[in-house]
């Protein structure tokens, strides 16, 4: 019994020490949590490095599909900044009053490309070939933003390729992945024949295993617009605001360009800051595309 008592005492002490450990680990430096759409992964990791070099703030990321992130924010996740791959999810959060509509900025755009494995087993040369019977096509799940744009694009194409184009492409879909990076992985592994993804998903890591087929310029393909915003009750909101400013700054925008993102369109921006950034960028666009080892069509 004596042994038991002392064992209990030891356990109690350990428990107390343990809980103190959590209390006394003070953050060595300030940090902000940024919920980031998966398609921004590489660009935002570089963004955070550049940002932390300027400001002594650590950026902690949660990368996931925008819909997942929005659901997590809705459930009360402790988050300072939300960078979404589509406007709908951002609007949902705004509608819930968790983000002030004035704080939402469009900071990037993304375009579609068609990808096939490097050896192109199904010999796909154009968007029309996606309707060939037996082609293994991968798409994102219906809850992923890119899927909405994909469906939109296929409906647009059906106008020129025939009414049954949409249904025939859909009949070739063999899997609906939970996020766009997994769609790319299927093609990289060569398990499927083709997929429509963002041009930014063709990162240097995977570009060797893929062939990228640019969309014909006369196709009015839908463009994904990326909004970023600071949460209304963001912890450490000053630093969070600094990060958003950095993403919108020339330096932030050139990082995004280097990873294949396009800059937001003039006409759509009411915000003075974004217009300012845009005026400073034409020469950068050329530079970024020239440097890139990724062969994708330049931003339209």
């Amino acid at each position, binding site marked *: *019994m004596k042994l*038991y*008592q002392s064992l*209990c005492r030891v*356990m*109690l002490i350990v428990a107390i020490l343990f809980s103190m450990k959590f209390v006394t680990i003070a953050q060595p430096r300030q940090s902000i949590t940024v919920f980031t759409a998966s398609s921004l992964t590489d660009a935002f990791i570089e963004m955070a490095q550049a940002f932390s070099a300027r400001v002594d703030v650590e950026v902690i990321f949660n990368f996931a*599909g925008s*819909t*997942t992130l*929005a*659901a997590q924010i809705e459930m009360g996740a402790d988050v300072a900044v939300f960078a979404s791959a589509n406007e709908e999810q951002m609007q949902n959060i705004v509608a819930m009053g968790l983000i002030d509509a004035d704080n939402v900025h469009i900071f990037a755009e993304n375009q579609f490309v068609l990808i096939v494995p490097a050896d192109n*087993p199904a010999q796909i040369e154009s968007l029309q070939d996606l309707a060939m019977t037996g082609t*293994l096509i*991968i798409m994102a*799940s*219906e*809850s992923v933003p890119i899927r909405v744009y994909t469906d939109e694009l296929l409906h647009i194409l059906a106008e020129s390729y025939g009414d049954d184009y949409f249904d025939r492409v859909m009949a070739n*879909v*063999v*899997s*609906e*992945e*939970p996020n766009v990076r997994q769609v790319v992985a*299927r093609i990289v*592994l*060569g*398990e*499927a024949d083709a997929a429509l993804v963002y041009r930014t998903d063709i990162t240097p890591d995977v570009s060797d295993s893929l062939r990228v087929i640019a969309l014909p310029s006369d196709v009015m393909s839908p463009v994904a617009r990326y909004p970023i915003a600071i949460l209304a009750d963001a912890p450490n909101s000053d630093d969070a605001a600094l990060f958003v400013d950095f993403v919108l700054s020339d330096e932030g925008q050139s990082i995004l360009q280097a990873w294949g993102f396009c800059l937001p369109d003039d006409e759509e921006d009411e915000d003075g800051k974004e217009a300012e950034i845009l005026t400073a960028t034409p020469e950068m666009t050329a530079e970024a595309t020239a440097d890139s080892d990724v062969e994708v069509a330049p931003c339209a």
Partner: protein
Amino acid sequence: MPKIARLLLLTLSLMAWLLLAVPIVALVWRLVASGNWQNLPQAEIIISATWLSLKTTFASVLLMIVFGTPLAYVLARWRFTGRRLVRVITELPIVLPPAIAGLALLLTFGRRGIFGTALSAVGLNIPFTALAVIIAQTFVASPFYIRAAQVGFADVSDELENAARVDGASEIRVFWHITLPLALRALSAGLVLAWARAMGEFGATILFAGSLQGRTQTMTLLVYDVFQRDLDTAIWTGLILVAVALITLMLSQWLAREDDL
């Protein structure tokens, strides 16, 4: 036992139990509180996924019986060098993260996998089919059955078998009339557990078979797919799986307990 120690013991064990119990209650509570329990939001996709889960797990269980039973028997009865290694490899999927299992299956049976060229030659493309779902489930769940069956076979006393042999029974008759009936309860308990594990399979399936409604989207994959846009459907499917888990666990415990008598 001093009062303080009892209190500590009670508090810690209560916390542990609550951690296990509260999430299940939360699943039910959310549905009741939201008042959405009356209407099945997307009944047809739940039914489609449930039906697929039942069909594929049934096939997996059949495969386990046909191929797993002989393996369990060999591992329990035969003495050969490397038996320990064979046994460890057999049981590896029990502790292997399912996502790794899925990747391994893809690299084995995928188009670019070890058997990829051979399978393509006979026109077989396994990934993204129900067959891939079945293979994934069998890979992950069969060790539960094989392990239980192995113990069951080992527990049958060889005196009874030898008595039958002395009376002139052939090896096959000994197996069918002595060994199998005596080990049946252990085999069933293992099979029920393995089936439950196959129903809950997620990681290996999503990597190897992908996710497509009606073709490869089992119940767990459905939950993952819809929880972001349709929480009620996800919860409903989840509750069906909780019920399945409860029933199988009780069944397998009942089978195991009777075995002790």
